[in-house]
């Protein structure tokens, strides 16, 4: 601490401490602790809060697992299904995003001329000036039953009946992959950019095919970027709300929509809090497990 002050001077040091302290304490720790606390309390009308009935309980977590007391099912199949579908879909989206971004990021980082690379980066960023909700609606217009794509294909005589892009969740997958594309692209680009181009040439000179060079040289080098991008895309996708609301089929329900319902429509904040805590906890555990599986350290992600 003394060193920190000596190195940065009193003004900058104090600013850092206050800014970071405020961020961590007021924007992360306090709200999350409040949520955690709320999730263990019964859902009571305002007048009864703090009264005799306001005691810690596991009722919301039980509800997530076993459903309401009046339900005949052994487990809360509906919510559990939504929960695991959301996680599984987020995994698929993350993989899609990675597959989509890797070649582009590699091209920008290692192959494109300086000018082309800059143009490509700009054209990647500019669409994201449009807000997430608008982008989702734009995709809806493209994919709707009488939307741009269907109309174009039918008018061109390529097919007779419209494809149900939204019902098949094509629109949802596209929208989610697109929504967090940059969060995969930039960590990937950063780590690929730092690869010494001579390594690629050395591998080639030693007779390696392009595929093997990527497998043995490029991907190991970019591992931290891949991990960092994948973690972010997974977390944000699992926690997305706007895109699923606009683009998911009537049968597909995103877990965040469930949380939203408990908070807003059912006015059951403590159950909403419990569901949020569950989503956060399981997502974090899942990410840590994946990192262990692929032998990535947390420190590497921020490299």
């Amino acid at each position, binding site marked *: 601490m003394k060193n920190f002050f000596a190195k940065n001077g009193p003004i900058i040091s104090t600013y850092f401490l206050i800014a970071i302290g405020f961020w961590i304490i007021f924007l992360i720790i306090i709200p999350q602790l409040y949520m955690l606390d709320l999730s263990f309390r019964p859902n009571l009308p305002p007048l009864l809060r703090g009264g005799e009935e306001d005691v810690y309980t596991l009722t919301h977590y039980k509800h997530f697992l076993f459903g309401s007391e009046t339900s005949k099912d052994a487990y809360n199949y509906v919510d559990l299904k939504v929960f695991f579908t959301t996680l599984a879909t987020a995994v698929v989206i993350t993989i899609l995003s990675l597959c989509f971004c890797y070649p582009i990021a590699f091209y920008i980082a290692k192959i494109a001329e300086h000018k082309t690379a800059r143009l490509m980066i700009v054209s990647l960023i500019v669409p994201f000036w449009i807000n997430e909700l608008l982008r989702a609606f734009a995709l809806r217009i493209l994919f709707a039953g009488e939307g741009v794509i269907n109309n174009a294909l039918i008018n061109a005589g390529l097919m007779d009946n419209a494809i149900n892009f939204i019902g098949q969740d094509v629109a949802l997958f596209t929208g989610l992959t697109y929504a967090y594309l940059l969060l995969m692209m930039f960590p990937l680009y950063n780590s690929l950019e730092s690869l*010494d181009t*001579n*390594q690629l*040439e*050395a*591998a*080639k*000179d*030693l*007779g*390696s*095919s392009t595929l*093997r060079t990527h497998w*043995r*040289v490029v991907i*190991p*080098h970019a591992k931290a970027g891949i991990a960092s991008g994948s973690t972010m895309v997974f977390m944000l996708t699992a926690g997305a709300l706007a895109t699923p609301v606009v683009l998911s089929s009537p049968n597909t329900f995103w877990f965040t929509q469930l949380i939203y319902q408990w908070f807003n429509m059912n006015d059951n904040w403590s159950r909403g809090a419990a569901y949020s805590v569950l989503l956060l906890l399981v997502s974090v555990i899942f990410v840590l497990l994946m990192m262990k599986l692929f032998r990535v350290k947390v420190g590497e992600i921020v490299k």
Partner: protein
Amino acid sequence: MSADVELQNISINFGDFYAAKDVSVMIKKGEFFSFLGPSGCGKTTILRTISGFLEPSQGQVLIGGANMSGIGPNKRPTSLIFQNLALFPLMSVADNISFSLEVRGHSKADRRARAEELLGLVALEGQGDKKVHELSGGQRQRVAIARALAIEPEVLLLDEPLSALDLKLRQKMRSELRAIQKRVGITFIYITHDQGEALTMSDRVAVMNEGRIEQVDTCQAVYEQPKTPFVASFVGENNPFSGEVTACNDSRVEVLCDGNKFVAEISGNDRQDAQKLAVGQKIILFVRPESISIKNNRSKTQNSFSAQLDSIEFEGHLQNLFLTTASGNKVRLSVPNAEEIDHLTAGQTMNLAFSAQKAVVLPEGNLAVD
């Protein structure tokens, strides 16, 4: 197996800029051949052309008599050692060395055995399991050599691989490289801007400037019988005197440089070139710093001139004297440290001499810039 490499009229241009212009050279089988030149002279371009990373705009590369046009670097019988070595940092030393075998589908045991064998060749036995970053600079150098030799290339290409090492290690690696080349017996093509490196290791040297080859010769010939003013001034230290020819025949040239009459003898090898000289022609006479001596009564050398002493520089085994002639020509001469020169003081005028055999007369041309 070893192969010869022939460059036939190679030109490489990027728009109007010619990185190499009409380069032709025949590199013999099993030879240690160097391209020597200042940075930007096109030597790296030539190396990349031989290895297949660049296709020449004109001309062709023949390796072992086979035309290499359209054949990629992964299909040529060459291996390249990069300036920064380009070892794979996330692989072990053994995996680095046997990467080319892995690519070709050799079994794990096979790869391991070959890696050990090559580690032996470069004196790194038992270091196969280490990571690249655990090795010292010189050891990494040797791993790069071993990796390049693993596929048994017919030609090994080296792009200034010693430039990152400190002086002592560099000198040690020079002799090691030479020894390895002798042992494996394949053609080595070496790129460097360091004439010391080129002269100590090579069988023959091509001196390059601005995309062209100025001279291809043995190291000694390049040093003692330079063919162009560039070679004379780039390889080693040299003192140029501009002037013109006053008389010449087959065996000697007389020139007049700033009022000094000098004579240069022409050795057998240079007769043909000397015939190109004519009376009245502008020339540059070169004489090496170690060939100039301080004139005394015993001196029997034909050529003498006087100059004012500016400074003396101590260089360990030598002392360098820097002088200026009356016409403003800078002259440098080197005397062995044993020689007694304590009595000399800056500002004094000295009489200097050099023999006609040690002088080289060349038609006027561009000098190397320091």
